């Protein structure tokens, strides 16, 4: 996008980057905020229906879809309370830490083929790492509130989240090892085609691993039945007790943001991401083929449809999370820990070993994964790396975006590939990996 600004509009280099970065982060922020709005409304509707009542119906017409907006306005207008015993600085900072962690992880999440803010080569790892930072906000909130309910809730949540990171990591590694890359765009592109190409159908172990991942993701974002930290019936509101008004809504934006994030991650890792059950755009010839670099409108439309597809899958995941919340009773903290250490970790490990064996032995799988070719992105991407200003003013050279390499780690081939420098404009996401 920065290239577009620099070349087409003639804006100087650094400013073009800034503009592109601002637009992308604004888009993500909008997604998180509107997503939170939408999910709060959805939760109330879903919970209402499950509990045999209607949910909001007045504000905003028959379905009450403006209810969340009204709630938001109410929350902003509330008095800004800080308890006397609270540690002032930490109390104020804690919601932002949580929200920042949740939001940062979106930077590496691709929404469609090439539509990602930061096309990291280690995207999966980055997301898992940043998700683990959210617990910090919770701990700070719990301590800084100066009340014992908050502290208990925070400690419980910290123990829970930290413990569940282990099986979460194990489950996330399984698609990574099947695909051979941690780049989420590449993983998504490899699952193009029919729905049998989705990684969840790769082998029975991966199928099990998905459900373990879902459970661990539920625990990781503190949703019921693992919501000890916010247990309304036990700890008043856990670490949220002393928070009201806008600060409370920051925590909830962080929580719904994380829910959408882990659902989106599951969609990419296991359900093909933006690739639909039926490869319509491939038949139409609209989708970008691996190695294509020119931009065309039909490709953009195909990507847009993929984005809608992806968001639909993520929202479906969140809806299932809500469904589970209002159906299952809450687990005690010792049951939560037992679940993690005695059930999720062994199941995850067995699934990992099984998928590893399946993959290594090359047994039959319904998948026909695209080879690890750089089908990554046909649209130009830019990264942290300093680019001298001349790159933005020179004419765009022909891209060399296509080196497919075999999946088996050929050391010599890899050496050749790593020595073959990608040009400034190409993002050979797959070509230079083993």
């Amino acid at each position: 996008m920065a290239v577009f600004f620099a070349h087409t509009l003639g804006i100087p280099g650094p400013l073009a980057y800034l503009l592109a970065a601002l637009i992308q982060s604004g888009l993500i922020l909008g997604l998180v905020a509107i997503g939170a709005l939408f999910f709060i409304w959805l939760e109330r509707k879903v919970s209402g229906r499950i509990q045999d009542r209607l949910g909001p119906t007045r504000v905003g017409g028959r379905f009450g879809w403006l209810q969340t907006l009204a709630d938001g306005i109410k929350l902003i207008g509330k008095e800004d309370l800080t308890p006397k015993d609270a540690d002032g600085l930490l109390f104020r900072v804690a919601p932002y830490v949580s929200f920042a962690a949740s939001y940062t992880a979106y930077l590496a999440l691709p929404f469609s083929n090439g539509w990602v803010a930061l096309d990291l080569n280690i995207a999966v790892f980055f997301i898992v790492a940043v998700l683990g930072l959210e617990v910090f906000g919770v701990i700070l909130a719990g301590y800084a509130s100066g009340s014992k309910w908050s502290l208990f809730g925070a400690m419980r949540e910290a123990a829970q989240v930290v413990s569940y990171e282990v099986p979460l990591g194990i489950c996330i590694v399984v698609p990574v090892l099947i695909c051979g890359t941690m780049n989420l765009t590449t993983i998504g592109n490899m699952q193009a085609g029919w729905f049998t190409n989705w990684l969840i159908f790769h082998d029975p172990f991966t199928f099990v691993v998905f459900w373990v991942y879902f459970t661990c993701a539920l625990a990781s974002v503190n949703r019921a039945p693992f919501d000890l930290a916010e247990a309304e019936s036990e700890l008043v509101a856990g670490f949220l007790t002393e928070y009201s008004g806008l600060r409370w809504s920051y925590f909830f934006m962080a929580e719904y943001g994380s829910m959408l994030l882990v659902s989106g991650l599951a969609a990419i890792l296991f359900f093909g991401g933006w690739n639909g059950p039926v490869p319509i755009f491939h038949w139409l010839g609209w989708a970008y083929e691996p190695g294509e670099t020119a931009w065309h409108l039909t490709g953009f439309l195909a990507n847009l449809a993929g984005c809608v597809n992806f968001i639909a899958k993520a929202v479906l995941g969140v809806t299932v999370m809500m469904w589970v919340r209002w159906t299952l009773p809450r687990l005690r903290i010792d049951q939560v820990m037992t679940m993690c250490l005695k059930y999720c970790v062994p199941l995850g490990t067995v699934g990992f070993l099984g998928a590893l064996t399946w993959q290594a032995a090359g047994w039959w799988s319904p998948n026909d994964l695209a080879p690890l070719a750089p089908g990554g992105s046909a649209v130009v991407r830019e990264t942290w790396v300093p680019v001298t200003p001349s790159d933005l003013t020179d004419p765009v050279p022909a891209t060399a975006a296509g080196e497919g390499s075999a999946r088996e780690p050929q050391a010599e081939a890899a050496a050749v590939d790593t020595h073959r420098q990608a040009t400034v404009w190409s993002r050979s996401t797959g070509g230079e990996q083993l």
Partner: protein
Amino acid sequence: MILAAADWYSFFFILFGGIACVFAVAVLLTSNIVRMAFYLTVSLGATAGIFFLAGAEFVGAMQLMIYVGGTLVLLIFGVMLTAQAQFITMRTRSGEWVLSVIVGSSLLFLLLVAAFGVDSWRTRGQSDSLTVADAQTATAIGAALSGVRVDRLSVPASETQRLRGMSGYLLPFVVVSVHLLVVLVGAAYLARTRAMWREPGEQRRSRGESPAS
């Protein structure tokens, strides 16, 4: 500064480096243990940003995951467990401050002189424009940890070739794994709960002793 800030790299480096240094100094200066932990978190997060800027994305993500998400959570737990009111804020005597500042500033001066003194470190060393090929260190790291140094395959055949398989990081990797296992067992043993014993009317003994001893 304006000249340097015209380049986004310099801007972000100064930003992250500044945050890391400022919050490290804040860790030093504050006496409230919980705030110390928070400032350390921010400082280590900024250090992760510095790692990303230097192209070591894998190390940066590891820093975030292990250091900030693991070690610091551990530290915070420790802080919470020992955070009785009188231990949250403990001041150091000013005599110690004077001595430490003298030693610290001389060490800092020495290090800075060394850092800016070596000529080969003061130039970028890049002759052409940097290519935007991202740091593909993840695969290379994995291969190196398995013993194959894929970034060294261009080394001419010689002694090194014979040892190529052993030039990887397989041995340190295994050693680290065993080390972590030992640490896990040891820390769990050290931190095990012992029964507290208190007789009615008696003063509270230190934990870990039974009344019979």
